[in-house]
């Protein structure tokens, strides 16, 4: 089952004719994803290695039954690209683009509140259901099908986590990079809730970082709703306050958004949090074991 994407997902790439769009569109197809169309305004009629290109997302939906969009549109036009996907009837948009102005995302966030489309990202590596479908820029070969759901605000740190998990024999149901921006379409809680209801997922690994309060909010939700073991890691324990650590959303400001508070909140909700990034698979195993014991006890 997995969540969000599977072998039936039909993907349109917004910005397919740009260098990143083309490269990752083809890599996704190589992985086995059904990449059915591309969209670049003014380039309708072209094709990229057999993938037809249209001027509008509406055409990709109408003519190729696309239901998932992967967005590589540059920052000045990216927010509008998300809105276009929403209006065209796309079910899931995955926005890889980094550097979209916050004001644009405030509007997108508001508009998507009234629409049925789910947005992942922006400024995210996308997501993968190993063995079935990849929508994003994640390296394919580190993933293994399995029972662990992964959700993360980060990119390469997620790959690190996934490699540790795979090496430890813990394959993944779906890995979702939700993005490092201050405003993102899908939160930890959204993904946790999906994993909670997903029969293929037995435990969840959560990767957070400094900035905002999404991990604290997730911690509360986990305490109240989560029926599966959760382990995690929070990056940025040593980050100096007031500095934006690469991601637009990764900043400790005025005493809020600190890693220590997030770790405490998660532990308070029973989440196994790794002391350092070398121990990510270990805490996941520990969480699974504890749940198993608790399960046997009950």
């Amino acid at each position, binding site marked *: 089952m997995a969540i969000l994407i599977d072998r039936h997902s039909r993907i349109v790439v917004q910005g397919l004719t740009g260098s990143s769009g083309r490269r990752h569109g083809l890599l996704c197809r190589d992985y086995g994803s059904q990449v059915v169309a591309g969209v670049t305004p003014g380039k309708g009629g072209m094709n990229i290695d057999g993938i037809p290109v249209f001027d509008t997302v509406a055409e990709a939906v109408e003519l190729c039954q696309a239901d998932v969009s992967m967005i590589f549109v540059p920052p000045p036009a990216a927010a509008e690209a998300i809105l276009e996907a929403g209006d065209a009837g796309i079910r899931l948009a995955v926005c890889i683009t980094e550097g979209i102005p916050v004001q644009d995302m405030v509007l997108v966030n508001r508009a998507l509140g009234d629409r049925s489309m789910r947005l992942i990202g922006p400024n995210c590596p996308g997501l993968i259901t190993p063995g079935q479908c990849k929508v994003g820029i994640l390296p394919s070969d580190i993933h293994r099908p399995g029972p662990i759901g992964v959700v993360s605000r980060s990119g390469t740190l997620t790959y690190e986590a996934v490699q540790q998990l795979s090496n430890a024999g813990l394959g993944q149901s779906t890995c979702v990079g939700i993005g490092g921006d201050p405003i993102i379409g899908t939160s930890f809680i959204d993904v946790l809730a999906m994993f909670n209801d997903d029969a293929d997922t037995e435990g969840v690994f959560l990767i957070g970082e400094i900035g905002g309060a999404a991990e604290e909010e997730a911690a509360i939700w986990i305490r109240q709703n989560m029926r599966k073991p959760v382990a995690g890691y929070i990056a940025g324990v*040593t980050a100096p306050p007031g500095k934006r650590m690469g991601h637009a959303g990764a900043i400790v400001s005025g005493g809020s958004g600190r890693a220590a508070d997030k770790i405490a909140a998660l532990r308070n909700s029973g989440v196994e949090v790794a002391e350092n990034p070398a121990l990510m698979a270990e805490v996941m195993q520990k969480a699974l074991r504890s749940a198993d014991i608790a399960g046997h006890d009950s």
Partner: protein
Amino acid sequence: MKLHEYQAKELFHRYGIAVPHSHLVRSIEETGQAADALAGSCIVKAQIHAGGRGKVGGVVRVKTSRQARDAARRLLHRPLVTAQTGPHGLPVNSLLVEEIIPVARELYLSLTLDRSSGRYCLIASAQGGVDIEQTARNTPERVSRLTIDPLIGLRAYHARGVARFLGLDGPLAKEAVELILALNRCFLDRDASLVEINPLVVTEEGHLLAMDAKVSIDDSALFRQKEVADWRDETQFDPLEVRAARSDIAYIKMDGRIGCLVNGAGLAMATLDMLSECGGKPANFLDVGGGADQDKVVEAFRILLEDPAVEGILVNIFGGIMRCDLIAASLIAAAKEVGCSLPIVVRMAGARRKEGRQLLEQAELNIVWQDKLASAAAAIVRQLSPAP
């Protein structure tokens, strides 16, 4: 991107928000003239990208032009260290010489993003001139937070509600409504991530005035905020940070000795955390980014190597978009170019890891290869430790 107080006040002025009369000066001589123009009695304020100036002598109230010159002599062209600057402080290259205005009350007003709701919010408090976060923690009922629906925007009735919360009525309430709406226009027009007036004062004459002004612009929107983008003051950054920014490399100077080069912000933070866990101190945060080409990676190495504090380097790459062999080739090219003899620990995983390792092993450099993050961090820390 932060603006200086004088830049923020220039913006406010354009939007019709009252600010004190002032002169921006860059020398002792100019300071004296500006003070003369205000009959000697004025406030001299160091222009740096950090708060906490008042407590360390960066904001000086003087009565004569002579005192103003003394203050300028003490402040200009040297670093000012405040609670927010870090230990090295920030250089004071200009001063704002401002008229003194008798104040009846001090209030607080700001607009910024509320991340939880994904909307902008207007924050107000009748308790101004002090740290708003502290007020919010200790007496939350004294802070009003209004999140703004982008469909409707900030309206006069919202502003009237805020004026009431601030205890303003009559003509002052009307002034407050106009000021709040003007501040919001400024915020949106300029793609600000923060506009803050602390304190917003009620003068003894019964008017509102922005006594201080803090504005930050959304870095992601600078492409469409040309005017403000040109106001960037590079003297307020470490020269290596300025240089990194030009190549679109996320780089932050820190206090330790271990230079770090990582791809990805999260992994870079995790690498610093791992180093610290092993007892090491990073000299920097450096995320070379996702789509880096060889030029960018070479420049990143140059930046590390030009930092005199760096005594050893930790490279942590998880190949995905970025190929490990490209990183290896860049490392070799950079080292050759700059002539690097520092110890380097390299950890690579993911795409083309094997090819990268091969390249590095063939190069004649002081490189140790490690497979895992923990051992890589431990290795560079060990190498830099004094022999027992």
